[in-house]
């Protein structure tokens, strides 16, 4: 385990701790962790076609979000993992046209995408804390314009899809 993986693990753990009130946050963090673990194991095992393996892992993540997500903030995660799939395909295409990007650059892009996913979950959790009717009355968020904005953003992020629609149809 290198320093970047350790940092991501700590980041995931902190996000898990602060997002215990967000529904399905723990599910997405654990599934994302499994996704990361599977694609890293493929790479460390020295197997070929690792962008394809990463693409398949990301597809499973995207499919899980598509089927299980209910709230608007989860669309952010959906788009993030779509971009991760696109990064894998771009790696294949850049190798094909004769300008391959290094494995390090590819890994950095995937790490950045994972951090964005954690930020989306953590950000939703923090806005959820600040937008709570009683808990979130702290500092500049206690009253006034900031308070109303945070409450409005929180309500918007937590908007749940009506039955019969997919979660992205409430965006």
């Amino acid at each position, binding site marked *: 385990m290198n320093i970047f993986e350790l940092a991501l693990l700590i980041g995931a753990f902190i996000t898990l701790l602060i997002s215990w009130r967000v529904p399905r946050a723990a599910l997405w963090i654990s599934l994302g962790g499994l996704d990361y673990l599977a694609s890293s194991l493929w790479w460390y095992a020295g197997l070929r*076609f690792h962008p*394809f393996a990463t*693409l398949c892992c990301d*597809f499973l993540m995207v499919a899980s979000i598509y089927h299980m997500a209910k709230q608007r903030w989860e669309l952010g995660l959906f788009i993030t993992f779509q971009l991760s*799939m696109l990064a894998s*395909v771009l790696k*294949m*295409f850049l190798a*094909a*046209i004769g300008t391959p990007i290094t494995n390090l650059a590819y890994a950095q892009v995937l790490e950045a995408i994972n951090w964005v996913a954690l930020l989306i979950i953590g950000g939703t959790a923090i806005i959820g804390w600040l937008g709570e009717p009683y808990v979130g009355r702290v500092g500049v968020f206690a009253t006034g314009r900031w308070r109303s904005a945070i409450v409005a953003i929180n309500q918007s992020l937590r908007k749940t899809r009506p039955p019969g629609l997919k979660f992205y149809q409430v965006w």
Partner: protein
Amino acid sequence: MGAEGVIAKVIGAISGALLAITYIQPRSISGLIRRMFVSLGFGYIGGESAYEYAVYMHWMVRGTDALIAATCGVSFFSWWVIGGILRVIAKKASGEG
């Protein structure tokens, strides 16, 4: 390209099909099955031709990576290309075109 080519084409076709259904989601399970079938089939069949053309045009460098990418591209776009061809045929058949 032998077994390597077959593996490359399978990988490319699956990649293109997965990317296509991720970006434009099918509305039903039957739609999903139809699209996967078409994407995988056309990717596998047409991938090598696309690869040869891309190499001939100097867009790609000859090798496994290029075969994967070409198959992936064909697999990704096949659903929309077939849809366009079918629309043109339907238009001609109905006498509007």
